[in-house]
């Protein structure tokens, strides 16, 4: 890896040198082999230690008259242009997170971000410093297309500057292009994110990767969604679109559609590796999104937020009561003013990753007739089965492969504008989790995790908009 050879690498993410390239001193990378369509090649690498230097390096990249790609059959093809699509800002608090993010983004060269800025905050003590590596990757989308390039800035920021990430990022954004903020891992919603959100048009997170059950962070995310200013793209929500396709397809049938407004029960089963003494530690963001999507589409309000199901009684001998493994979970209640819909989200031991949805069941009752919907997924197939009054009415299979982070990121930054369905789902998920919490959090000392359960539930922290305010 080039940075390793130089020994002057910033501690943030890195991309390995690509086959067919070699590094020259702080500037263009000479291409040794012929470029192949679809494969990005590293064409520029240099270092900078201030914003001004970074800007100068970016200008230098495009001022090079002899940056050429050698393509089979068409030697001397001039670099056509930087893509003009968007800025992508990634906040990676750990080097390995930055590395993973960089590897994913590199695969999107020529497809999306015009400029990617990967920020890694370092030691906050001492004077401010910036260490940045500037790279340009170019790619031929296909043989006949012009070559397109994208820039990546790996930036490690220490000292006070690390606490003002927006001030470091803002001057480096390509003018008048939308800004997507990707926060892999656990976003620290309680500090430091607010000013970056002010810069961004879109926030990309993965709720299913959050630590613990994820419900607290879901409340903050819902608070951001409630602002209606920033679009949110949660991988956890998008990954489940194959379930939503299958569920929606059931009600494409006019004779079944009539039941949809008469849902009485929603049950979601998810995979868990929990120990018996820590029954609800698995991330439940994905199962909650299923319920929230249904509720928001059907205009069902949250009557009772999620709460742990009563703990199973223990037998006098001290051994767990029969059925303990399937009795723990979460319950909630939805309603539209007429009738209520019970919600159960329940874990079950499984070899699947924790929090993976295994089954979704719906029960609807209408004029004495009952409809049961059972949706399951196995490998790349989602299966929807329906019984009406005990008689099988439908059995459909949907081929839908799971999507990778690369697919999801591409989709996240491809999609333009806010997705009202996603925003409504996230807001509803926040309601289910206990109510959205509005950013910004002004106090770093009394962050969300410094609050007690009673504080969180205290209506005085609510501004009346349905969004709880941060604590004083």
């Amino acid at each position, binding site marked *: 890896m080039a940075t390793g050879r130089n020994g002057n690498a910033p501690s943030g993410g890195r991309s390995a040198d690509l086959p067919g390239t070699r590094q020259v001193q702080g500037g263009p990378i000479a291409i040794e082999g012929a470029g192949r369509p679809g494969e990005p090649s590293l064409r520029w690498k240099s270092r900078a230690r201030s914003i001004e230097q970074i800007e100068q390096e970016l200008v230098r990249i495009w001022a090079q008259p002899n940056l050429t790609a050698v393509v089979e059959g068409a030697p001397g093809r001039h670099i056509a242009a930087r893509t003009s699509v968007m800025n992508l800002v990634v906040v990676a608090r750990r080097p390995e997170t930055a590395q993973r993010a960089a590897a994913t983004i590199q695969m999107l060269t020529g497809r999306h971000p015009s400029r990617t800025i990967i920020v890694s905050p370092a030691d906050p003590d001492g004077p401010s410093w910036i260490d940045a590596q500037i790279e340009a990757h170019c790619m031929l989308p296909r043989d*006949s297309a012009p070559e397109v390039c994208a820039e990546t800035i790996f930036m490690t920021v220490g000292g006070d500057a690390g606490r003002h990430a927006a001030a470091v990022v803002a001057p480096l954004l390509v003018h008048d292009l939308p800004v997507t903020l990707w926060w892999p891992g656990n976003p620290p919603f309680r500090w430091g994110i607010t000013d970056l959100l002010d810069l961004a048009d879109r926030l990309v997170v993965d709720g299913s990767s959050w630590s613990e059950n994820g419900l607290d962070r879901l409340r903050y995310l819902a608070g951001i969604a409630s602002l209606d200013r920033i679009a949110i793209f949660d991988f956890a929500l998008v990954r489940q679109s194959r379930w939503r396709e299958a569920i929606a*397809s059931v009600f*494409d049938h006019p004779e079944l559609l009539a039941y949809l407004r008469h849902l009485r*029960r929603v049950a979601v*089963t998810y995979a868990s590796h929990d120990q018996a003494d820590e029954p609800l530690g698995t991330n439940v963001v994905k199962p909650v999104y299923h319920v929230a999507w249904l509720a928001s589409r059907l205009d069902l309000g949250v009557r009772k937020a999620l709460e742990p199901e009563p703990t199973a009684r223990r037998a006098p001998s001290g051994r767990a009561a029969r059925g303990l493994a399937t009795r723990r979970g979460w319950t909630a209640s939805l309603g539209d003013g007429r009738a209520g819909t019970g919600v159960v989200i329940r874990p079950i031991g499984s070899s699947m990753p924790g929090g993976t949805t295994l*089954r979704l069941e719906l029960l609807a009752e209408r004029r004495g007739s009952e409809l049961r919907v059972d949706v399951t997924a196995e490998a790349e197939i989602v*299966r929807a089965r329906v019984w009406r009054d005990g008689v099988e009415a439908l059995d459909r*299979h949907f081929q839908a492969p799971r999507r990778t982070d690369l697919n999801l990121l591409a989709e996240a930054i491809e999609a333009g504008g806010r997705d009202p369905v*996603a925003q409504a789902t996230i807001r509803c998920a926040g309601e289910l989790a206990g109510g959205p919490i509005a950013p910004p959090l002004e106090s770093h000392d009394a962050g969300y995790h410094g609050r007690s359960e009673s504080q969180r539930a205290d209506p005085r922290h609510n501004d009346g908009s349905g969004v709880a305010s941060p604590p004083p």
Partner: protein
Amino acid sequence: MARPRSQPGTAEPEVVEPQVRPETEPDLPTHPAPRPREMPRTMRELRMQRERRPRTAGQPLENPLREGLRLERVPDPAAFVLFGATGDLAHRKVIPALYQLWRTNLLPHEFCLVGLARRDYDDDDFRAMIRTTLEDHARIRPLDETAWRSFSERVVYQRLEFGDAAAYDALAVALDERDRVKATRGNRLFYLATQPSAFAEIVGQLGRVGLDHEVHGGGWRRIVIEKPFGHDRESAYRLNREVGKVFRESQIYRIDHYLGKETVRNLLVFRFGNGIFEPIWNRRHIDHVQITVAETIGVEGRGQFYEETGAVRDVLQNHLLQLLALVAMEPPATFEADALRDEKLKVLRAVAEPRERDVARDVARGQYGPGWVNGVPVLGYRQEPDVDPDSETETYVAARLEVEDWRWSGVPFYLRTGKRLSKRATEISIQFKEVPHKLFQESVSDPEPNVLAIRIQPDEGIMLRFGAKIPGLGTEVRSVTMDFTYGSAFAVDSPDAYETLILDALLGDASLFTRADEVEQAWGIVDPIIDSWANMPAPDFPNYEAGTFGPPEAEALIERDGRRWRRI
């Protein structure tokens, strides 16, 4: 009551019995309830209650779960019944499109392809043939083996002579069997990738065995017909009537693949999704419109077909007039199929049918002679196989048409298409009027009028030309372009037109298909041209060399108006 069985590796069915009960009684009362205290009594209370009430309460008309999903609707389970399954169109376009749709999970799992043709194949022969085809024509190569395996499992073949009644009886039985084996639920899409002369026979036989019947709960039946739809207005009318005896118009999908191209679909978004263009999209700002469909290929071994067709019937009557309609139409009230097609039809009705004396002036025809195309010597049209050595069939046509309506009165539409031209290009070019006063007269070169060019192929995209000052101390003006190409802006492959259209047909969306009245109206525009030529002396063919921009008559046609063709 039947209970869902537990799936391997998934939850136990016990989960369907949660402990939480609804907080209110689920069933609505069957008799009038006593008036509750919160019942609104004043107008204000009533209004406030209604504001709180979900707008969608009551019987829903549409599936609210569909909003925001990838497709408006996942195609229903269906059998795709392909007539002419061993033919060129099926193998170059239809089957690769189906495979690509399958590969990207856009076809239902409960899907099967039933190939029908005269050749004596069995299922394995046909699958092997398809495999070879896909290796050459699939949009994404090499083939995805997993996708191919699952796709090929859904392919079957049946020998069928189009006129053999017994074969259709067997087909009906076989399709019922497919319903049982592949759970295709009685939904059938019949795709006629055959010679047009077979359309009426096939449709009649399908009707005879009842394969057109849509019965409640028994599945839908649709038929896709490839162009040409008839040979002239009369034959199109007859064909529509024959097909209409068996299938309702809502079951018929007449495919014009140009309408499925990404840029053509984008034309609607461009016009009606942007605020800046529609206000100037009229006679006050637009000088004229040029629509070009230029091909470098010749007749590609289809000499016999082309002898009976020619450029007017092959391209002008359908592709060019459809593009003209999309450029000139008024905004539809909705994006539904009939709203869109109604507006296109209005445009076609507004196109003045050329009179005989107009044809001589406003329509130019040509036929290519030998020449060089793409650096390769090529034969002249009359030397092509199966072509009459004295053929008078046109391989090029240029026409000046006018849309006589409020928006376009006085704006000429110049349409041209030809084979063996110097370059392959399809483009719509909107040429705007010049500025009313030339302010920069000292400039060495006059700024050219603004042009908006919508490229359909190759390099799909949109280009806007405008004048800009050349950097320096003087005030020199030069035309520059703002260029949008799909490749660099999105860098994702656009679906092939056939993928778009086949998926639409499976979904029951007829927006991008032509309606019977559109087809007949379009024939009404070109029939007088063909009739007039029949009354004229024999043309002096060939009149353009292969690999050039077309015949001089076409240049003269537009130069007479003081304009010139855009260089493609």
